[in-house]
């Protein structure tokens, strides 16, 4: 096995669980997360020598995951698909979670959701998020602001509905 292959394998072994969690946060579904990570790592593996040379291969993989998610979302939206078919999660999720917040996150466009995930899950700064997503810090700021505003409005609507019902 050559050195490039060894370093790629080591990278995958070390970062796979974290990348799966990140993808899960970005797309909201563990099965899609596994597909997105597989796809992103395959793309990374093909160009590993060059990507490794940038010094931050994980940023490349994260961007590939977000782009993969965005691309799927655009395609589904173009085809006027709505909610996923309800299904069990095949034992992949053991922990209870804030379903209301997950449902609301699922309503955000992928870019806004990715910004919020990187900010509140990865604790990244605006500069780091901008580098990861390949956009300007100003875009990060506006996307975060829009995403939070939507979540606040949706939560307020839900509370109002629960008081009046």
């Amino acid at each position, binding site marked *: 096995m050559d050195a490039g292959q060894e370093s790629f394998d080591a990278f995958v072994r070390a970062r796979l669980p974290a990348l799966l*969690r990140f993808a899960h*946060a970005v797309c909201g579904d563990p099965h899609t997360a596994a*597909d997105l990570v597989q796809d992103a790592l395959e793309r990374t593996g*093909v160009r590993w020598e060059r990507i490794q040379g940038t010094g931050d291969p994980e940023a490349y993989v994260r961007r590939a995951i977000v782009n993969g998610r965005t691309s799927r979302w655009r395609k589904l939206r173009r085809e006027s698909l709505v909610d*996923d078919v309800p299904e069990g999660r095949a034992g992949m*999720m053991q*922990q209870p979670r*804030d379903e209301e917040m997950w449902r609301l996150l699922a309503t955000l466009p992928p870019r806004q959701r990715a910004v919020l995930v990187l900010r*509140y899950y990865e604790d990244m700064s605006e500069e780091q998020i901008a580098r990861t997503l390949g956009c300007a810090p100003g875009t990060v700021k506006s996307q975060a602001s829009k995403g939070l505003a939507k979540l606040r409005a949706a939560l307020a609507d839900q509370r109002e509905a629960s008081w009046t019902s």
Partner: protein
Amino acid sequence: MDELEQRLRTALADDALQVLPRPDALSTIRAGVRRRRRRTRVVTAASAMAAAAIAVAAAVTVPAMLDHGARGGKPPVTPLSGSWRVAETVPLPSTAQNVTALSATATVVWVGAPGHLLRIDTTSGAVTTYDEPGTPLALAATPRVLWVAARGGSGCLLEERNAISGQRLMLHQVACRAGAALAVTANGPDAWLVVGGPSHVSLGLYAAGRSRPVRTTTVTGSSTGVHPLAIAGAHVFVLTRTPATLRVTRLAQDLRGTPVSADAPAGVIGMAYGTHRLILATGAGESWVDPQTMQVRHLADDATRDLTTGNSLLWSVVGREPTTLVVRDPVTARRIGAVVVAGTVSHVLAIDTDLWAVASGDDNRTAVLRLTPVGGK
């Protein structure tokens, strides 16, 4: 930090996001990287040849014809686009001319015939024959385990064999009616077996090394098609026929939870999974199913009687004597190439960018062919 931000942090905690990596994740990723590298070479070669495709189609016919008589009865093959060539031909012994099943991994091809099982080492070309207690109707090969679904005199069997030595490791007796359809597919150490019945099909999950099925369930309808079973992402899909309709049903791989069904197109005869979509073949064309939403959409209009997918390629088997193997992009339906086999192709299986095909020539001799992209290995 306000309440919303606090809830976001809590919702996005590690515990709530846990996705366990599959045990074979690294090897699957490595294989994916290799496939993409090969695919890049194929697409590059196909693009370079596209300008000359018409000329090639006309000119390649004679040079591509194989020496039919002197080399063990290989069926003549004409690559219309010039993108694939016959890299290997393995004539099958006279005891295994009536092929009933085919499966393969990157290094081994398995062929089933009544009373026999053949292991073809693709590196050395060595053929090893094993006795089988019945007729293998479906094979599912993984690098370590071969699963054989067979019908014997007293019922149905699911065998687990060592993929290296061919030695039988486990034999499961499976209840079935006479003439029941069998299908098996495998992923890592797990295998899924479908046994057809008159009003429902039985679906079982088996694990290598275990003497009993992990879980079994049933799906309404009788089994239908040449490939009624497929794995797609985290799901397993089953094709069934009820008096009113054809159905494709999605179940979790552990067979727990509620199955989700959708109407399949009329005349559907099989399924294959590739590039995040489930491809359905009908006698009049191909459709695809989004594994998440179960929405069915039209893909192409080949009169397909069998199909297989590999490395972002969809192979459709069209016609008999000659048989045309149409290669498409499963997402855009763009036709990448076509290969004409001057004989009948009975089984196909794509592995990466290669295709393994069981073909019979005009002298009724049967051989296993390996088609490889021009410029490939």
